[in-house]
């Protein structure tokens, strides 16, 4: 560790500086201009992204080996910055309608992003845990940020209590693992497992509790109950952030933990994780069919999506890790697209029911198009990201020979198309009443049109010609598995 190493943390430093600046400027900004603080915040995320370039190809241990900057962390750091950028750019309209203290809102998003970037670089339990809490603390405030809405407050309280509970499980698990192996560092744990293959009950309980704690973060069954309520109650941009950023951070934690620490004992856990994966996706898909509210539908759909990614964890190797990174990237672009449509639709109408989408086709072609692309991608239709990334992931997972897992995952993916089509039917096909036909067409701000189009292009790009993304994902995977 020397002074020049800090250059590699410049993205994080820039984000923290931007957050503090935004908070400071917020004091001097008149109330009606506060939502526009989004632009400096988003610019900060872009600058941070530019500084990431320094880290390309570098593999560097820092702070006594607690942090490791490699292509794996680079992949996710880039992803989180992208998410933060899109969420912030998508927010101003919503913030203007619903939220006060806009500066605080944007700053907290940036701070949570810093936390997520810390998780993916951590090679040690406590560093990862503290980064995870940094993410969570930001979200505890952000979820309840619509201070005058009962639903938002309720969601915030729930998220806080359940989050604290899951942190308790996670910490307890970490302490048991520490007790068994004498270390919280992944590499040291792996080394201890090489010499002592079985630490007995304490060890098993420790790993199970860590999995339960992380299961909460990625909203896996049966630790998912918070997700629909919190997704529904939280301000929409925060829901979008939760459903992609927070989920991706949880998976990055899981992947690095298993790849670098628990890999020697992974075989003991494959079936258990596989069962959780199947339950998660099946539950998410079955319940999604029942939903009439678009946010809740997307909440259950994102539970199902977490199940697909867990297939990769259950069959962890270099190829499935590439697959997971690829799928997370595609899912992020896709879900952001879907949520941005919901956000803009909500800004314009104040509604979020599936029925309310009637006539969307006539009122805004772009919104309908992006919604269609996003939902078809979530449904895993060819030509869209969701097909390509799931195909890659499941193909890689087939090497594990866990055919029941692959078969159930494919079945889920193929039949989920039903409820996504029901939404598209409302948007495209179901006729409006005569009264509704009088409603004017939507006028979207130009930045909204730009971000929506950008995400749609991304989804199609990954779906049709994914080489660049596959290369990036495989570079990230190699950082963990070598080769």
């Amino acid at each position, binding site marked *: 560790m020397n002074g020049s190493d800090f250059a590699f943390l410049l993205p994080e430093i820039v984000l923290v500086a931007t957050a503090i600046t935004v908070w400071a400027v917020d004091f001097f900004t008149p109330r009606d201009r506060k939502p526009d603080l989004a632009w400096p915040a988003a610019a900060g995320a872009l600058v941070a992204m530019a500084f990431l370039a320094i880290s390309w190809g570098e593999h560097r241990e820092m702070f006594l080996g607690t942090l490791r900057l490699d292509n794996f962390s680079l992949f996710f750091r880039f992803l989180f910055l992208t998410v933060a950028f899109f969420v912030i750019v998508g927010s101003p309209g919503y913030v203007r309608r619903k939220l006060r203290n806009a500066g605080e809102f944007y700053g907290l998003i940036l701070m949570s992003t810093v936390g997520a970037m810390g998780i993916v670089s951590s090679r040690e339990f406590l560093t990862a845990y503290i980064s995870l809490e940094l993410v969570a603390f930001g979200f505890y405030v952000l979820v309840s940020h619509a201070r005058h809405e009962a639903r938002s407050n309720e969601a915030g309280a729930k998220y806080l209590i*359940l989050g604290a509970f899951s942190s308790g499980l996670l910490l307890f698990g970490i302490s048991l693992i520490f007790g068994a192996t004498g270390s919280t560092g992944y590499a040291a744990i792996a080394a201890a497992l090489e010499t002592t293959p079985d630490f007995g009950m304490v060890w098993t309980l420790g790993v199970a509790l860590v999995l339960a704690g992380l299961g909460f973060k990625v909203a896996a069954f049966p630790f998912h109950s918070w997700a629909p309520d919190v997704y529904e109650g939280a301000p929409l941009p925060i829901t979008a952030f939760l459903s992609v950023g927070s989920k991706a951070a949880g998976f990055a934690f899981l992947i690095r933990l298993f790849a670098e620490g628990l890999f020697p004992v992974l075989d003991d856990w494959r079936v258990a994780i596989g069962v959780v994966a199947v339950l998660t996706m099946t539950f998410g898909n079955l319940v999604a069919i*029942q939903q009439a509210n678009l946010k809740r539908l997307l909440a259950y759909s994102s539970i199902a999506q977490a199940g697909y990614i867990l297939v990769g964890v259950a069959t962890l190797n270099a190829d499935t890790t590439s697959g997971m990174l690829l799928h997370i990237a595609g899912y992020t672009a896709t879900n952001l697209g879907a949520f941005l449509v919901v956000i803009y639709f909500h800004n314009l109408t104040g509604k979020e029911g599936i029925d309310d989408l009637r006539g969307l086709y006539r009122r805004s072609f772009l919104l309908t198009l992006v919604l269609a692309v996003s939902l078809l991608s979530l449904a895993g239709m060819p030509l869209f990201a969701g097909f390509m990334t799931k195909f890659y992931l499941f193909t890689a997972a087939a090497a594990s020979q866990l055919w029941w897992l692959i078969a159930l995952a494919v079945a889920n993916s193929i039949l989920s198309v039903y409820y996504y089509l029901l939404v598209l039917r409302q948007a495209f096909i179901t006729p409006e009443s005569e009264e509704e036909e009088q409603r004017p067409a939507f006028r979207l701000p130009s930045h909204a049109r730009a971000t929506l189009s950008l995400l749609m292009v991304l989804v199609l790009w990954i779906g049709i010609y994914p*080489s660049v993304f596959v290369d990036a994902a495989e570079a990230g995977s190699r950082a963990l598995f070598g080769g």
Partner: protein
Amino acid sequence: MIEHPWLIPLAPLLAFAINGLLGPRYLKKATGVIGSAGILAAFLLTVWLWAEGEYGEATLFEWLASGSLAINIGFLVDELTVVMLLVVTGVSFLVHVYSIGYMAHDGSFARFFAWLPLFVFSMVMLVMANNFLSLFVFWELVGVCSYLLIGFWHDRESANNAAMKAFLVNRVGDFGFAIAIFMIFWNFRTLEYGAVFAQVGQADPETVLVIALLLFVGAMGKSAQFPLHIWLPDAMEGPTPVSALIHAATMVTAGVYMVARMAPIFEVHTTALLVVGGVGAFTALFAATIAVVQTDIKRVLAYSTVSQLGLMFLALGAGVYTAAIFHLATHAFFKALLFLGSGSVIHAMHDEQEMTRYGGLRRKLKWTYGTFLVGGLALSAIFPLAGFWSKDEILAGAFMRGASLDGDGLFIVFWALGLAASLLTAFYTFRMVIMTFHGDPRDAELHERAHESPAVMVAPLALLAVLAMGAGAVLGFPPEHGLIHDFLHHAPGILHFELTGNQTIIAISLAVISTAVALLGALGAYMIYSRGAPRAESIGQFVPGMHSLLYRKYHIDEIVNYGIVATTKVLGFILWAIDAKIVDGIANLIGWTVRALGGAARQVQTGQVQNYVFLMALGAVVSVGALMIFR
């Protein structure tokens, strides 16, 4: 031409892009011409390709070039591809031209002519694929297009439901297909046809059998084989030209093509062929029995398609691939003819599809009647029309497969099923012709207003009638050594079985038998339906309940609806209720208990959070407990 095979799909794709982007606002009626021109261009390019006679594979671009998964997007052009392309683009072109007339008064004319070329594009790409991934992608895209076109009249609830049903049933088939692809990749580390076929010989036969059966599940979905046939009869909710396209050229032929293309995989294990042949033979007879009692003209044709596809699979199972592809081609001609003809009748009768209200139309719709009759004769496999040659070959192939030394005796049974299906085919075809065109008008008012369709609709009918009349003899004479046989003989993967015995005599007697059976069926229909009102029930009287069972299509739809769809919905509802309601319920119960015990009338805190924590803790305890026990 072989250096640029991508030009063939490009033409319909361009037509789609132009019509889709500019159609609704600027081009309007011109979209019909542009769409037809795009398909015609694809057809002419295919003819050029055929005339040059040079085949091979061409790589378009590297789709994925990294690490474990390397896939090139390319085209495979061989004899089988060329036959499929000629049929698909040729018939589609005629359907496009016909649609200009049929859809002339539709408000969404431009939208129709955007989706139609896209459908053809997907199908063209499907038959030109050189790897399983492209095949699957366009297989799905064909499904999406069918969804869009079946549900084209989306203000009709029934059309929406039919579209959704078609899509979902196809997805069930795709499930098998997708698993098969994962297994292929895992076993052979490649997804290119050639490389896979080269390896199947050395692979474990049981594994290849599983792959073949899973692929066949995919084919069953697309080609409407029992029990995944239920979507096809409903698919007629789309505009009639779409039905013609789905039933004749695109979509349903994809499954037959796929099995023929994958012949090297199916032939590794004879059980795979037996299953294909058995499902095909059963479906052929099963669907024919249903067609006998339907009164909706399009529904009769729909079940007839299911039945004829069954015959094609019987051929595939028997190993006479050429006969299957031959029948695919002739069937495309006469089924397109019959569907377009029925469209002409429906057009004339102001959208009435019930044959019970038709009758005596032969004097009013001369051209339609003449061409429809030709199509009917071809479908009934009456000598010397197209259907005779191809169907005869299928039945002969099945019989000889059963009788030959290296064959399987069960194929004799399948042959008998196929023969019974032929009898019923001739019966329901002539029942349809007689109820529609002969006798006295049953609805005088409708009959009064009926009129022949415009030339743009009649011309494709006439052309198809010529094909339905002559294609069989031109392509398939002499049997086993006709044009199509010699042509397909060179295609890789097309094998021929060694037969025993005096083939000529067997072949001729089989041809005589099937012709006699067809004539018998036609005669039966004439006896029952030609004089006076139809007496469908009169046959039913022999076996009580039979007519109703057939008319209700063996209640398969009800079984699927209540058995599977409803169960899924109920399960989803229960899970949702548990998630949202029962947790509350438990809270209320606890609250109620507390209140009852304490006797104090205080407000009860029933926030759900405690219960979520409870659920999570329970989840952790159960999973840890399970791990402790099972490890």
